[in-house]
C-alpha cells in the first residue's frame, strides 16, 4: 500500500468490474447522471459478456476537464467487485492504477508495485440490510471525491429506482451516505485525490446513449412504426421506441423473424406510415431480399443496423465496423441506397432524423450503420444540435389516371398511397410497366432500369457533409467513419501534429464529393476503422483511384485512445 496520494486534476478514468447481475449498470447510471447534473464532463462505456448472470463485465467512466468522447485503455482507479475482476482487467492495469475494493477482491493478484487499497464494501452494505446495496455504496464512495450536492444524488436515485418504490429508494440513499462515510473513514491513507474542474459552458445539456439518440432521432423523423426481431445490439432502439409508443402513437410489432419485420415495414410505408427496423448484421442478412424489394418498388425504408463482430454469431456483445461491405452490397440486383453512420450523440439523432426524409424523398432504403460501442456509450450532447422540425411528407393524393411508375424527367414518380385519392397504387417485385403491372418487355426493362438508376444522381442534392478538422493544405489526411470519431479526434490532439488533418464521414455511401476532394488533395491518406480489411478504405480507393493506408482493429473492442495515437505516430514515420 502506498501512502503517496495520486492527484487527478485534468481527468480520471474510473473502471468498475464485476459479474453480470451485480449492478454495475446501476453504478454507471447513478455516477454518470449525478456527475452530469453537477456539471462535470462525463463519459461512460461498457464491455460485457453474452450472458444474463456471471462472467466479467466492466464499465469505464471518464470524468474530464474538457469534453471527451473516446474509450481509453488506461485505468486510473479500478474497483474490482468480485474475485475474477482483476484477472479480467489485468492487461489494462499498470503501476499507475489505483485498485480499491474488498480485501478478497484486491489482494494477492498483483506484484507490490500496484497500489492496492482495501475497503470493506461488502460488510458495510450488509449493515444496510443486504449485499445488493454494494453497487450504490461504491457509487457513494466514488461520489465523495467529487463536489456533489446530496439533492442531486437523491434526484437521480428516485429516477433510477422509480419502479422499485420508497423503501428501496431510501435504502439506496443510505447506501450512498455509507459509501461517502467509508471514504472519509479511510481518508488518512487514501491513495488518491480527484479535483477536476466542472465545465463552464452550459449548453451541453443532454446526456444519453447512442441508442437513445438513434431512437429520439427516429421519432423526430416521424417514425410511427417499428417492426423488429430482438438482436443485440440493435434491440435497444426497438425497446426505446416501444417505450415512446404510448405517448407518440407508434405501431410496435415484435415479428416472428427479421424477414417479416422488414416486409411489414414495406407494407407500412406503402400504406403511408414511416417505418423502420432495428437489427444487427445477422438479422440484416435475413432482411436483404426486402432491401432489394425496396429497390425494385421504389419504396422508402429506414434500417438501423447495430454492428457486432461476425462472421455468423461472432461476438454477440462486442463491437466492430465489419458490415460496411455487406450493407453496401446487400440485396440482389442494382438500385440506389444511402448509408449513414453517426459518430456523435448529436449525429445519432440527426442522421436518423434525416434518414426518414432522405428515404421518403428519394424513395430508397436508407441504412443507419452504428455498432455496439456507439450504442452502449453514454455522454453529454447539445440539444440545440438536435433539430425538431416539422416533417415533410412526399406522398400525394392520387387522381384516377395515377400511375405509380410514370416516367418523369428525373426518374422520381410522386408516390401515391392506397386510400388517399381516386387512383390505384400497384407495385410489383417483378419488372413492371408504368402502371406497376408485370412486364417481360426488354424495352420496358431497360427504361425502368434507367429510371431507377438515374435517381442515384439526385442523392447528391441531400449529401450529408463530413466533419473536417485541421488545415486543408496539410500533407496527411486521416479518414474515419461512424463510431470512431471521438477516439480519432482525441488521438490527433495527443499527437499534436500540424501536418495532419482529419475528415470524418457521416454519410458513408454514396461517398460525399467533399470527402473525395480532401482525399485527392492529400499526399497521403490513412483510414482508421474497426474491421479486418479496411472496408471504407477500399471504397475510397475505388472512388479516388489512389492507394490509401489503413489502421484497423478487429479484436471485438473499440479503439483505445492511447493505442490509436501510438499507431498513428508509427504510421506517420
Amino acid at each position: 500500500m502506498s501512502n503517496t496520494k495520486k492527484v487527478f486534476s485534468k481527468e480520471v478514468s474510473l473502471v468498475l468490474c464485476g459479474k453480470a447481475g451485480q449492478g454495475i449498470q446501476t453504478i454507471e447510471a447513478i455516477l454518470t447522471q449525478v456527475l452530469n447534473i453537477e456539471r462535470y464532463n462525463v463519459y461512460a462505456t461498457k464491455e460485457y459478456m453474452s450472458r444474463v448472470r456471471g462472467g466479467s463485465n466492466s464499465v469505464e467512466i471518464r470524468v474530464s476537464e474538457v469534453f471527451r468522447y473516446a474509450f481509453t485503455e488506461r485505468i486510473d482507479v479500478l474497483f474490482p467487485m468480485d474475485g475474477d475482476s482483476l484477472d479480467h482487467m489485468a492487461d489494462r492495469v499498470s503501476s499507475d492504477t489505483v485498485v480499491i475494493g474488498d480485501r478478497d477482491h484486491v489482494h494477492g493478484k498483483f506484484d507490490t508495485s500496484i497500489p492496492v487499497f482495501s475497503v470493506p464494501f461488502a460488510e458495510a452494505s450488509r449493515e444496510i440490510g443486504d449485499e445488493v446495496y454494494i453497487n450504490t455504496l461504491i457509487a457513494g464512495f466514488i461520489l465523495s471525491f467529487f463536489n456533489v450536492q446530496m439533492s442531486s444524488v437523491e434526484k437521480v436515485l428516485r429516477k433510477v429506482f422509480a419502479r422499485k418504490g420508497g423503501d428501496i429508494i431510501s435504502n439506496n440513499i443510505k447506501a450512498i451516505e455509507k459509501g461517502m462515510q467509508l471514504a472519509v473513514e479511510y481518508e488518512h491513507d487514501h491513495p488518491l485525490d480527484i479535483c477536476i474542474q466542472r465545465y463552464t459552458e452550459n449548453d451541453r445539456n443532454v446526456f444519453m446513449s447512442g441508442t437513445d439518440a438513434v431512437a429520439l432521432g427516429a421519432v423526430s423523423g416521424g417514425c410511427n412504426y417499428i417492426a423488429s426481431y430482438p438482436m443485440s445490439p440493435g434491440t435497444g432502439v426497438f425497446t426505446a421506441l416501444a417505450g415512446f409508443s404510448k405517448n407518440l402513437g407508434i405501431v410496435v410489432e415484435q415479428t416472428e423473424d427479421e424477414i417479416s419485420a422488414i416486409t411489414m415495414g414495406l407494407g407500412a410505408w406503402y400504406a403511408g406510415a414511416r417505418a423502420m427496423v432495428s437489427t444487427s448484421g445477422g438479422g440484416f442478412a435475413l432482411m436483404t431480399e426486402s432491401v432489394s424489394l425496396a429497390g425494385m418498388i421504389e419504396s422508402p425504408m429506414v434500417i438501423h443496423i447495430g454492428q457486432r463482430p461476425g462472421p455468423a454469431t461472432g461476438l454477440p456483445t462486442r463491437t466492430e465496423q465489419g458490415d460496411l461491405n455487406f450493407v453496401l452490397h446487400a440485396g440482389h440486383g442494382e438500385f440506389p441506397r444511402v448509408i449513414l453512420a453517426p459518430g456523435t450523440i448529436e449525429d445519432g439523432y440527426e442522421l436518423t432524423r434525416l434518414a426518414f426524409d432522405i428515404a421518403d424523398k428519394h424513395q430508397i432504403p436508407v441504412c443507419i450503420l452504428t455498432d455496439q460501442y456507439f450504442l452502449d456509450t453514454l455522454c453529454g450532447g447539445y440539444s440545440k444540435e438536435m433539430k425538431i422540425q416539422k416533417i415533410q411528407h412526399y406522398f400525394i393524393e392520387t387522381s384516377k389516371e395515377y400511375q405509380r411508375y410514370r416516367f418523369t424527367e428525373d426518374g422520381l414518380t410522386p408516390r401515391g398511397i392506397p386510400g388517399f385519392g381516386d387512383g390505384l397504387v400497384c407495385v410489383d417485385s417483378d419488372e413492371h410497366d408504368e402502371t406497376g403491372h408485370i412486364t417481360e418487355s426488354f424495352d420496358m426493362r431497360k427504361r425502368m432500369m434507367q429510371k431507377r438508376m438515374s435517381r442515384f444522381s439526385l442523392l447528391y442534392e441531400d449529401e450529408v457533409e463530413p466533419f473536417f478538422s485541421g488545415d486543408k493544405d496539410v500533407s496527411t489526411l486521416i479518414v474515419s467513419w461512424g463510431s470512431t470519431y471521438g477516439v480519432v479526434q482525441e488521438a490527433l490532439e495527443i499527437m499534436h501534429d500540424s501536418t495532419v488533418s482529419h475528415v470524418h464521414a457521416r454519410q458513408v455511401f454514396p461517398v460525399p464529393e467533399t470527402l473525395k476532394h480532401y482525399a485527392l488533395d492529400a499526399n497521403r491518406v490513412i483510414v482508421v476503422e474497426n474491421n479486418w480489411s479496411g472496408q471504407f478504405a477500399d471504397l475510397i480507393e475505388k472512388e479516388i483511384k489512389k492507394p490509401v493506408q489503413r489502421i484497423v482493429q478487429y479484436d471485438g473492442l473499440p479503439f483505445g485512445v492511447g493505442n490509436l495515437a501510438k499507431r498513428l505516430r508509427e504510421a506517420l514515420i
Partner: protein
Amino acid sequence: MGNRVFEPDHHMDIAWCPACGNFGILGALKMALEELGLRPENTVITSGIGQAAKTPQYVKAHFFNGLHGRSLPLACGIKVANPFLTVIAESGDGDTYGEGGSHFLHAIRRNSDITNIVHNNMIYGLTKGQASPTTQEGMMTPIHVRGVYEKPFNPVAVALSLGASFVARANIGDLVKTKEIFKRAIQHKGYALVDVFQPCVVFNKLNTYQWFKEHTYYVDESYDAHDRVAVFSRIMEEDRLPIGILYEQIGQKTFEEHIGVYESNADPLFRRRHNLNTIRELIAEYAK
C-alpha cells in the same frame, strides 16, 4: 360474369394455362368484392410469387405483389397502417405454407383483420411439377423420384390450433359457393383463412376437378362451426374432406385493436400530425 367494378379497364395478358383453377378464383374474388359493395380505391390485395400470386395483377384494385412467401407480413403491415382498407393476402400453397410457413403461423396468432385466400393445387406449377407442402403422399415428381414421403400439411387444422377465428375451405369447382365463402371471410373481423382446392391442369394429374368433387363434401346444417373441439375431429378426416365455413368465432380482438394507436384516434397513420411538442418533451427528459 357480370362483375365490372373490379374488372381491369384494359385487356390483360393473363399468364395462366387454359382451364387453370386460378381463373375461377379470380372470378369468384371479383364477384365477392363487388357484391359486398367494396370499392377498388379502398381495397388492397397483396401476394407473394407464383402463378396464384399473379391474381392481383388481374383485379382492378390496389395491389402489392411482393416476394415469395411474404404476402401475409405485407398484408398485416398495410392493414395496421390504415385499418380503413380492405386487405386480402392471396397466394399459392407453396408460397403460403412453405416459403412463408412461419409468417402463416404468426399472422394467425397476430389476428390482423385481413383475409387470406390460398390457392391450394397441391403441386408447384410455375417451377414445373415439384411437390408442394400439401401434395399427397406417394405422388411421383421430378424431385421425389421415389414418391412424396412427407405427410401433407393440413392448413385448416393448423389455423384452428393457433386460434384462428375464421377457417374455411372451398373447392373452385363450385364457383358460386366459393364466392359466398369469400364474402363471409372478407366480412369477418380478424384473420380469415380460405384454403381453396384448385386443380393444376398441367402438372397435377391426380387432384383434378373430378377428384376434388369426389373427395370433398360441404358441411351441412347439422354442423356446428362454433364448437372448436368437434370441428377439430372433423377437419382431421382424410378420406373425404369437409369444405365450407369450418370454424367461426366472433369478437376476437384484432391486431389493430391491440396495438393501441387507434384507441383514441381512428385516423390512419398517414393522416396524423407529427407531434413536435411531445418530441421536445421526450428530449427534455434526457436533460438534467
